[in-house]
């Protein structure tokens, strides 16, 4: 076991990939000399050279599309789109390019591209810099989407993504980079088809992913002290969803709260809530509840931003309500 930060774990994952496969390279705005806007790639340009740790101009359509092209021509590019906010500019290349090329060429091409982006709010960077669009990418056939929520997953998810022959998008929540945690050394790649049970429990399933996991775990601790034994499911893979794990947890606990930093309406949490009620209706002892972000652009001031985002006490309260409302 080694202890490191989420940031270091991602960096280590890159170093391992770059060292072991000459086809791998990293490209994005300021990944090189600057060291990455979240310092993920700090020092990597010196170690691997500026060809392989490639700074790009501010040209999101251009360099994401270049990633698509390079992947289809035999490389294994990792494209860092600084944050999900800017990925809107590259959406066409991801959705109409990466996700469709294999299908519309009848299987002649594949696009083994990994796109990483930071996501989420909580740093008071206001309306244009605080988005969570994981749900949008998770909607697109042809893409695989995942979000490491632990340091261990941060360390070993990239390997799985690079091993995948199809485009994979990895979401890193901005508030996780400084989180410390343990990493099993020499572990294999994370299984991108499997959600993880981060805490076993019988009373209620708390289902979440990415940056909300720490909040949910905290809520679970709080619930435990009040005698409620919550099971915490970390989706890990946002597309395809591991419905088996989700549903079997709910079949055990009969109650679910889904926590997701996206805006409430049309959130990934909504999809999960729908699936549970569609596929396990008769197992539910109470309606599924969602804790999502308020339906407003994220405001700058701390108190309003916090009010807009999912909160630990809100999650715990929802869980209590679920448990209290036995059908």
């Amino acid at each position, binding site marked *: 076991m080694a202890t490191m930060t989420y940031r270091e774990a991602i960096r280590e994952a890159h170093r391992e990939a770059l060292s072991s496969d000459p086809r791998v*390279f990293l490209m994005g705005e300021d990944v090189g000399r600057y060291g990455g806007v979240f310092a993920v790639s700090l020092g990597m340009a010196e170690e691997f050279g500026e*060809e392989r740790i490639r700074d*790009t*101009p501010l*040209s*999101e*359509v*251009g*360099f*994401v*599309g*270049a*990633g*698509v*092209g*390079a*992947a*289809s*021509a*035999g*490389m294994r*590019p990792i494209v860092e789109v600084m944050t999900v906010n800017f990925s809107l500019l590259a959406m*066409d*290349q991801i959705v*109409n*390019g990466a996700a469709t*090329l*294999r*299908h*519309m*060429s*009848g*299987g*002649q*091409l*594949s696009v083994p591209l990994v796109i990483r982006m930071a996501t989420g709010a909580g740093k008071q960077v206001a309306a244009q810099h605080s988005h969570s669009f994981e749900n949008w990418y998770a909607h697109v*056939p*042809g893409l*695989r989407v995942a979000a490491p929520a632990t340091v261990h997953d941060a360390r070993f998810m990239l390997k799985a993504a690079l091993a*995948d*022959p*199809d485009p994979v998008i990895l979401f890193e929540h901005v508030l996780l980079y400084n989180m410390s945690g343990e990493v099993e050394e020499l572990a294999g790649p994370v299984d991108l088809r499997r959600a993880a049970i981060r805490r076993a429990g019988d009373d209620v399933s708390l289902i979440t992913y990415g940056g909300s996991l720490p909040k949910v775990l905290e809520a679970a601790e709080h619930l435990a002290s009040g005698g409620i034994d919550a099971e915490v499911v970390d989706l890990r893979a946002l597309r395809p969803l591991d419905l088996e794990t989700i549903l079997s947890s709910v079949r055990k606990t009969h109650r679910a709260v889904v926590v997701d930093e996206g805006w409430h309406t049309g959130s990934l949490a909504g999809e999960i809530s729908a699936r549970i009620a569609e596929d396990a209706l008769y197992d539910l002892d109470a309606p599924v509840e969602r804790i999502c972000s308020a339906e407003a652009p994220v405001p700058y001031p701390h108190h309003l931003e916090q009010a807009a985002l999912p909160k630990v006490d809100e999650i715990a309260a929802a869980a209590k309500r679920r448990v209290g409302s036995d059908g």
Partner: protein
Amino acid sequence: MSGAVSRERGLELLREMMLIRRFEERCAELYSAGFIRGFLHLYVGEEAIATGAMRALSPEDNVISTYREHGHAIARGVPPGEVMAEMYGKVEGSSGGRGGSMHIFDASRRFYGGHAIVAGGLPVAVGMALADALQNENRVTACFFGDGAVAEGAFHESMNLAALWNLPVLFLCENNFYAMGTHLSRAQAETNLARKAASYRVPADKVDGMDVLAVEAAVRREVQAVRDGGGPRFLECETYRYRAHSMYDPDRYRSKQEIEGWRRRDPIATLKGALRADHILYEEDVSALEASVEDEVEGAVRVAEEGSLEPVEDLLKNVYTPREIRWRR
């Protein structure tokens, strides 16, 4: 033009342009008859570009095109039967029938689409060239696109990236003066498209896209420059599409005279004229070519007609790479 070409090559070029034209006229009929569906963007009038350009590229080079790509595909060597079968949505189609007219792919001939988002192929071309540069492949990526695409942000970003990284991309702009119904002069403040390349320090040139020999010569020169490591080049080919943007359009945006004017510069007629003037083309040649082209096109139609439809159970095929393939990588 006269005196520039041997009989053999002249006939070859002529045949190819005639083949593309006949193929597409047949497509139009088959569309009207309901055998081809979706969008169908014909290349009639522009054949000299694909024909000339493709000859200047080697089989090892990459080619990327747009939704108006039958001509490019055929000139690149994709069998017309596979292109036609694609439009029939048959398994025998070049993309297994999944793509249709706008998405012809043939990886075995390094023909990489068939992109239907205007300018969407440009960043992909840059990426393929980047892959080649990183892998030390001495390969050129030729990327076709229209005048309309030049207005897109993706053009700007792609030109800059290719130039900044000195990548082996040949940007081949087919300027037919219209993006759907919008004339270049109503879409772009600078209508001399080749001039835009200066913004990226990309050497640029312009060629008469109605003259197959001129196109071939110009592309050959540009490809050589790119292959020599000089970074990207931009070549504008001035041309014209005789027919509607897609199969039907009201054609209210241009005059009959304008169309007639361009028809007088028809690339096939022009080449015929030059070969005749050089006394290396005879009436029998023309009828022989017509017959042979007709045969080939009818053969293509037969391939398409006799092809098979993919079973509905395979709907989800090729959304993701199948496991069998995956383990082999």
